[in-house]
């Protein structure tokens, strides 16, 4: 088990290194920079700017400096606003995490019960309609659902605001928007997992023994049936946090998304690197955590690793 985790960790480090390198070279090779839009700058100011951020040096030297700074824990500063990148991230990251956690909460609350019910009532109207709704949830993206929710719910319920990020009430609409799609996937995965387990021999044995149906479901079926859903939650959570810029844009939540989009538009190299690095680290950490959790939950997986 330890071997697997160390393996995952090494793979994660490669992922982060790749991400950093790709971002670095893509941004450096972009024609134009943060100064292109400000033509009135004098030649000296430009020179000072280039010197300050090492843009006058060859790209490979810049890359070396960037890595050295990274190991010192220095993310440098936004070339557009001059604010330290670490400060920008510290301000906006909590919002993204809150949005991701509440979105995942919504997804789990909707997806898992819906999946279980539709597996237990297989091929009934409840099953068909749940799966139809799940398909709609998968197909309709956040930028369609979000504005519609804002229009029809946000405008009619007085304490739910359409835009802004103050008290926890403001989290409701964005997290519903963010969670619906993931919830729909989760419902499908849960249904498939439950159906798989319910057709296993040990469930039939339990039924033959006369164990009550409710007991079979809660004691035997859920344990195995939910494993695929739990395996999906980890990566989905990372995806929710790194992919929430659209929801943040719709509801004007001050998360990392706006900074990422603006940094891309402004070609702000250090800010972009910092945010992408954080995204990468987050994905790796969440995936490893979910792998470990799965190994604890699934004895079969543990045995295979030991053998």
């Amino acid at each position: 088990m330890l071997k697997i985790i160390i393996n995952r960790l090494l793979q994660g480090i490669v992922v982060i290194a790749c991400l950093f390198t790709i971002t670095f070279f893509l941004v450096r090779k972009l024609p134009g920079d943060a100064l292109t839009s400000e033509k009135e700058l004098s030649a000296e100011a430009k020179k000072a700017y280039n010197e300050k951020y090492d843009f006058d040096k060859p790209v490979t030297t810049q890359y070396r400096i960037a890595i050295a700074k990274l190991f010192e824990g220095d993310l440098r500063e936004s070339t557009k606003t001059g604010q330290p990148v670490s400060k920008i991230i510290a301000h906006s990251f909590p919002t993204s995490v809150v949005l991701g956690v509440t979105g995942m909460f919504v997804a789990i609350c909707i997806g898992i019960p819906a999946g279980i019910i539709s597996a237990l009532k297989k091929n009934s109207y409840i099953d068909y309609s749940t799966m139809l709704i799940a398909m709609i949830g998968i197909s309709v993206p956040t930028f369609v659902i979000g504005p519609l929710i804002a229009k029809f719910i946000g405008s009619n319920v007085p304490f739910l605001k359409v835009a802004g990020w103050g008290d926890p009430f403001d989290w409701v609409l964005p997290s519903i928007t963010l969670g619906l799609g993931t919830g729909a996937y989760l419902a499908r995965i849960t249904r498939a997992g439950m159906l798989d387990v319910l057709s296993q021999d040990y469930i039939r044995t339990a039924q033959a023994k006369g164990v009550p149906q409710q007991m079979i479901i809660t004691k035997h079926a859920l344990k195995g049936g939910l494993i695929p859903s739990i395996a999906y939650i980890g990566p989905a959570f990372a995806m929710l946090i790194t992919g929430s810029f659209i929801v943040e844009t719709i509801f004007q939540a001050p998360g990392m998304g706006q900074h990422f989009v603006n940094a891309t538009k402004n070609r702000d190299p250090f800010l972009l690197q910092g945010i992408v690095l954080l995204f990468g680290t987050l994905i790796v950490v969440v995936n490893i955590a979910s792998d470990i959790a799965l190994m604890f939950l699934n004895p079969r997986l543990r045995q295979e690793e030991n053998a």
Partner: protein
Amino acid sequence: MKIESGNSLWSDAWLRLKKNRMAFISLWIVVGIILSSFLIPIIGEIFAPKDEAYRAEHYWFKDPDKQSLANKFQGPSGNHWLGTDQAGRDLFSRLLYGGQVSLLVGLLATLISMAIGICYGAISGYKGGKTDSILMRIVDVLYGLPFLVIVILFSVFIKAWAQQSVGFLKNDWGWGEGLINITVNYLPLCVAIGILGWYTMARVVRSQVLSSKKLEYVEAAVSLGLSHKNILFKQILPNLLGPIIVYTTLTIPGFILTEAGLSYLGLGVESPNSSWGLLLQEGANYMETQPRLLIVPSIVFALTLLALNFLGDGLRDALDPKASKD
């Protein structure tokens, strides 16, 4: 004596697809949306009157880029079937042209990703051993990258690069305005999504090649002395058409969604060009006063994605019964 002819995989699949009501309805919806986004504008343009003022007043199919601030925010009428937007442009023709862009970007990105994924997966599965494990480790690493983030970075990079070569294309290669507009506005998106979206296809093809490598017909091909290239691309791959088609159909809606998402964020197709993502974003800006501008594109977009997803699911059940989840 009459020889009973067996059912081919394809006729079997067609029968199974026809039995799946949702998938069959979806097939017609998809065909309908594709045909109307491409045929209606073509027919409308062919018969369009030369006189622009007359066209704006009386002809049924408007110029999608024709602005007229006097006519902004008009409701649906006999003249503007779906009304006009914030710049007085006709929503009906913009929706159709937007559909062309969204569908084509989705399709082209899928084709690019398919080509890469099939070659990569096929080689990995066919070679096996060390090559296979190295190639698959690379895919594992790529899988770990946040898709939307990387697509945004690549598309911005490719776009900047395309913009830089506009002068060259215009002067040295003699490209026209339309071709350059396509190269700068749409191609970067297709390429960025395509060169980053092939991992799942590669995994699917690899596992299929890996298992069919051991079948008798491949052994027969080997003993006939056929070259590896011949065996892989002429013998094995044609047999994998089923899973490839299924997976392709399931990829298209995802890529259409990615394009629309990028356009929504202002990082994809830019105004005055039209795309469904752009229409949705403009609609969201005016949703308080003009909900029509948001709701109409939302319905068309959602219906298309829903139909494509249902069709993909139905095709999976029809072509690859083993892989379907009940």
